[in-house]
Every structure is written in C-alpha cells, then in structure tokens.
C-alpha cells in the first residue's frame, strides 16, 4: 500500500516534467505544414520556439530600417526556408549595386559562387561548413538575426568570425590595415569638405554633385575593406576620391578667377 502511494507520489512528481518533455517533443516533431505563412504566423510560432532569434530580428536593421518580412529571405515554403535564406541570392535581390558587386568580385564571393552547387546549404553558419563565407555567414553568423558585422557589435565579434577560417594575426593585420585605409579615405573626405566650406559666397554649381561623389567613393573604400575587394578599395575608392578632390579644387580656383574678373569689371 505504502509502496503504491510512494509510486503515485513519485509518478505525480514527474508528471509535469513528462508533460513538458512530451509537449516539447511534440513541438519539435510536429509536422509543420509546408506554408505559405503570414508574417504574424511566423512571428507567433517562432517567438515561442526561438525568442532570442526573434528579438535579434526585431532589434536589427531588417526589422527597424527596411521592414523586411520573414518570407522575403526565407521564401514561402517552410521545408527549405533555412537553405534558401543562407544563399547569397536571397540578399543580392535587395542589396544591389556596389554592396553586392564588391562582394561578388571578392575572392570570398568568387569561391562561394563556384562552390554553390557542391555546398550543403543545410549546414549551420558556423566554421568548417562553408568553403568561403557568403553574405549570411558573416552578417547572420550562427543564425544571429541581427547583423553580426554591424559597427555596434564591436571589432571583437568580427575578429572572432573571421578567425573561424583565418589565423588570428592575419585577421588582426587585415583589420588594422582596413582601419588605416578608411582613416585615409576620411582624410580625403575632410579635405574635400574643408575646401568646399572655404567657399563662403556663391558656390560653383558642380559642388553638390562632387560632394555626393566624395561620399560614395568613401563608402566604396568601406565596402572594399569589409568585403576584401581590392578593386573597391582602389579604383572605385582611393583614386576616385583623388579625382573628386582635383575637381573640387578646379571648380573653386576657377570661380575665384571669374570673381576677380567680375570685380575688375565693376571697378
């Protein structure tokens, strides 16, 4: 009798645990219909399963800036949703132009493109599974749904991600050189801004366009450094900035000459 009661107590004590386990197993094994799902359905279900992931997404640029929905990257079918989102194509359909081109011409981009057919895209975005990093490997590393390359994540996170494949010193030196390249691009930007602000009276008409060019070319250096694209660091970046400075100076010095002529006539 006592034995029976004890058994009962023991079984009752385990019951919540067993129920929880059963519920979780059921959740994990539950056949998810193939979809498509609405955005609310995705968020409701995944908030329960992956609260951290949803929080990362909510705080990240895809939610706060571009209002990108889950299906934009994951597609409509639940079955291959992870695979689909890991591929570069899911990013490059929105991130066009220099952001995409600087990566696709880099060695990482080239290898990733050539390996795409052989690559097992089911694998998690972790070291050892990918021959070269695609967009998602670095920017959504280990499935982080923020941006793991965002400046506010700090250099340690980037150092750690790159060091999954490269030696720590190599990564350190590349980063340090990248910082020097960017600092130099910033000096060019500052030189251009200072030249333009020195024109106190009527500004030559071309200056606003030249300012836009300066900013774009500085951005190219950043993309070149981040994506390790020599062409964006150089031809789309540094010498292009040099050209902007030449044209800014030329516009200013010509307007000064014309001003002197005008002053002379008025006298």
């Amino acid at each position, binding site marked *: 009798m006592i034995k029976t009661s004890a058994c009962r107590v023991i079984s009752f004590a385990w019951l919540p645990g067993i129920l929880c386990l059963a519920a979780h197993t059921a959740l994990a094994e539950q056949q998810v219909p193939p979809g498509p799902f609405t955005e609310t359905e995705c968020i409701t279900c995944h908030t329960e399963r992956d609260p951290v992931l949803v929080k990362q997404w909510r705080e990240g640029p895809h939610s706060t800036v571009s209002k990108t929905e889950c299906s934009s990257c994951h597609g409509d079918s639940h079955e291959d949703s992870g695979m689909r989102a890991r591929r570069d194509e899911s990013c490059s359909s929105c991130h066009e132009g220099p952001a995409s081109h600087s990566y696709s011409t880099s060695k990482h981009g080239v290898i990733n493109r050539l390996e795409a057919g052989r690559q097992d895209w089911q694998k998690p975005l972790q070291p050892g599974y990918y021959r070269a990093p695609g967009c998602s490997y670095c920017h959504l590393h280990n499935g982080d749904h923020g941006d793991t390359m965002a400046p506010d994540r700090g250099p340690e996170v980037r150092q750690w991600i790159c060091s999954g494949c490269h030696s720590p*010193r190599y990564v350190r*030196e590349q980063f340090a050189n990248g910082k020097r390249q960017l600092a130099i691009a910033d000096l060019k930007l*500052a030189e251009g801004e200072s030249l333009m602000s020195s024109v106190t009276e009527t500004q030559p008409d071309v200056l606003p366009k030249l300012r836009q060019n300066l900013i774009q070319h500085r951005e190219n250096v950043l993309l070149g450094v981040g994506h390790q694209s020599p062409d964006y660091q150089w031809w789309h970046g540094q010498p292009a900035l*040099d050209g902007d400075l030449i044209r800014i100076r030329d516009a200013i*010095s010509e307007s000064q000459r014309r001003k002197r002529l005008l002053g002379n006539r008025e006298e």
Partner: protein
Amino acid sequence: MRYRLILLALPVIALLVVSAGFAYVHWSKGGTGTGLYSRYWSPDPVQGYWDPDNFYQSVKSVEGVFKAALCIQCHEGITPGIVADWRVSRHGQSDNPVYCNDCHGNDHQHLRLPTPEVCGNCHQKQHGEFKDEARYGFPSHVLAMERAVDAKHFVDKPKGEVQSCIQCHSVATKCDSCHTRHRFDAAEARRPEACITCHSGPPHPDDETYFGSAHGRLYLAEGDDWDWSKPLTKGNYKAPTCAYCHMDSGRHQVAHKSVWKFGLREVNPHTSKNQVLRKKWIKLCSDCHDQEQARQWLTGLDQERKQAWQKLYAAEDILKDLRNDNLLQPAAGERPPYPMDWMDRLWPRERIGFFEGQASAFYNVSAIERDYFEMWYFDNLGAYKSAAHGNQAGVESGHRKMAASLDRIETRASELYHLSETEQRAEITPEPSHEIWMKGAYTDYNRKHN
C-alpha cells in the same frame, strides 16, 4: 699620341660609368622596401601576407616543432575550414599526401608563407613557365609586383593606402591568387571567375566585357555543367574562358601572345614579331572558328585601336598646347611633387602621354589632365577589352565615352583659353593657385607619411 690616350680613356670611362650605374641600382634596392625606390619606403605591416618572400615574418605565439598529425589535430579546432579544404584537395587525397609542414615548415616559431618557389619544388613545369614570363615584359603576371612597387605613386602615397594595389599585384609573389588556399584546385583556376577579383573595375573590365560577349554568355548559361577537370585544349570546352585563350594548354603565362599590350600604348601590330604572335592567336581561334573569320576579327581589333589612338592623340595634343601656353592650373611647380623625383623638382613639367608617366598622373594633376587620364585609362581600356573579347556593344560604349571625354576636354580647353584671354585684356595676372592645391588634411598627411 693624345688621340690614342683619348681612345684608351673612353672605354675606361664608359666601363666606370656603367659599373657606377649598376652599383647605384644595386644600392638603391637595399632599403627597407623593395625595388628601385626601396630606400624611400617601409612596408605596411600587412604587406608580408602579399609579398611573403620579402616581408613575411613567422608568428611567434606558439612554440614547438610539430608533425603533420599534430598540425591537423590542432588546426581542425582553430581553423577547421582550411583543414577541410586540404582534406579534399589533391594534396590531401594523394597516396603520398603533401602535409602542412611540407609547405609551411614544422617549427612554429619559423613558419613559412609559401612563395611560388615553394610550390615550384614540386610543380616545376608550372613554376618554370611562370618565371619565364618575365622575358615578355610587362604587362605580365610575373613582373606585376616589381612594377607596382616601382611606380612613383606607390612610393609617394601612404603605404596603408597602396596596400590595395599590392593585393592584386601579389599574383607575382603567391600562387593562391588563382589557386585559392587550401584547395589549390586547377579546375577552379580554369574558370573565369578565378580572374575577376583583379580583372574587373574601370581600367580592366575583363569580367564585364567577357561575360557580355558571345563566349561569356554561353559560359554563364552552361558553364556550371562543364567538366572543369579537363585540360585547356581543343575540344574540351564549348566556349573559351580567360584561361583557355590566355593560358592555352595550361601554360602558366599570360603575356606570351601579347600583341596590343593591354591597350595602354599604341603598338604597331604589323611588326614581324607581332605577325608571329598574330598567327598564334589565329591558330588558337581556329580551335573552334574558321581561320579567315579569326583573321578578320583581329583586323577589326587593329582598326578599333587605330580609332582609339586617334581620339587619344587628339586629346594629348590639346593638353600639350595648354602646357606650351602655360594654361594648366595648377602648374607643375604648384603641385605636391613626388618626393624622390629630383628631376621633377629641377625641371617641373606636366606629364602628358604614356611615355611621360601618364600612369602615375591621376592625383597631383589639374582637372583637365585628370579627364585625360580617365579617358585613356578607363574609357580606352574598356573599349580595348571589349574589342579583344568580341563584345561589340562594349566597343561602341567605350568609343562613345571616349568621344564624350574628348568633347569635354576640347570644351574645357577653349574655356581656359577664353578665361586667360579675358584676364589678359583686363590686365589681371593669375595668382598662383598654390594655396588651394598644396594644403589639406590628406595632402599634408601624404607629404609627411609617404
């Protein structure tokens, strides 16, 4: 007697001058950098990874002498990607595997970053061909690094900045530019994408011009299904790729059939030497096409070059006239000079045209010279690459851009003449533009840190 003395003295003097010249060149290469200006610069810390033979120093963080099994065991945890790459590579799959220490050494305090010489220990044929390319001059792969560091703008600019040049020019100092580590796959290097990290962008849009050609479009549509393990010889590929034509039969040289020299300067394509090279191209094209057809295509390329150089020389003439009339502003003496260029200081002169150093004249020049630089280096080379890759739309676009550049240069020149004449009539002497051109956050930094 006196004549005899002079006759005797002349060869002695000549010998002394030549030896002094050699000694000077030897001395000038003995600085902290490399090349002819090595005494004027020191490398950026990252340069060791691009030019290991000259600048790489082993990491000192780990002590010990290791056997391959231990290297693999440890690096499988630290850098699993490179171990996975090596495992599936021919080095890893061979019955007699090439292990980590065969290329890197086994003392972790004295590790080696492999140079072409290290690869050449086994790949003698490829390494021999690669080194032998030097006899065809530049542009070529094997001379890329020395030509980069011997460029005046490389020496003049901050070394952190010009590391971006070195990355591509390291094709002369490492093999993994094309055979990426640690797979070192010949099949990968045969595909056109292997070339585009460096062969893209404004001065060498080989990627766009090839991918837009009939050959490139066929590759893009079907290339993923081709068997890339096959050698680059007749019948193995439905369309030619970069390597099929430029490194035919897998020969590790790109310059050996070079006639038009990248489109950088005007060449006479009909010299006896170039006739021989032309025959080699025609033979190559005839792997798939009729010889006569190939001959006509190359004649078309000659004509395209002639038209391009007519436009370029017209622009050069305008600039030279402006130079003669002292209308280029800032004048040569009012620009930040190359620090080691003492000739330029003694005799300041604007560089116009290829042989005066146009290649370095993209930053400390006037706006109209910069326009010409872009016309020559971007528009012209784009047109040339299009013509050479059989991309007619690219040729038309390149020539349209050149015509627009020439038009801009003409308009700008006539504005400069007009401005100067008006100033003369008003008896205004132009003020030197030194203030605007010689100062600035970057310009000052560059002067201190080159």
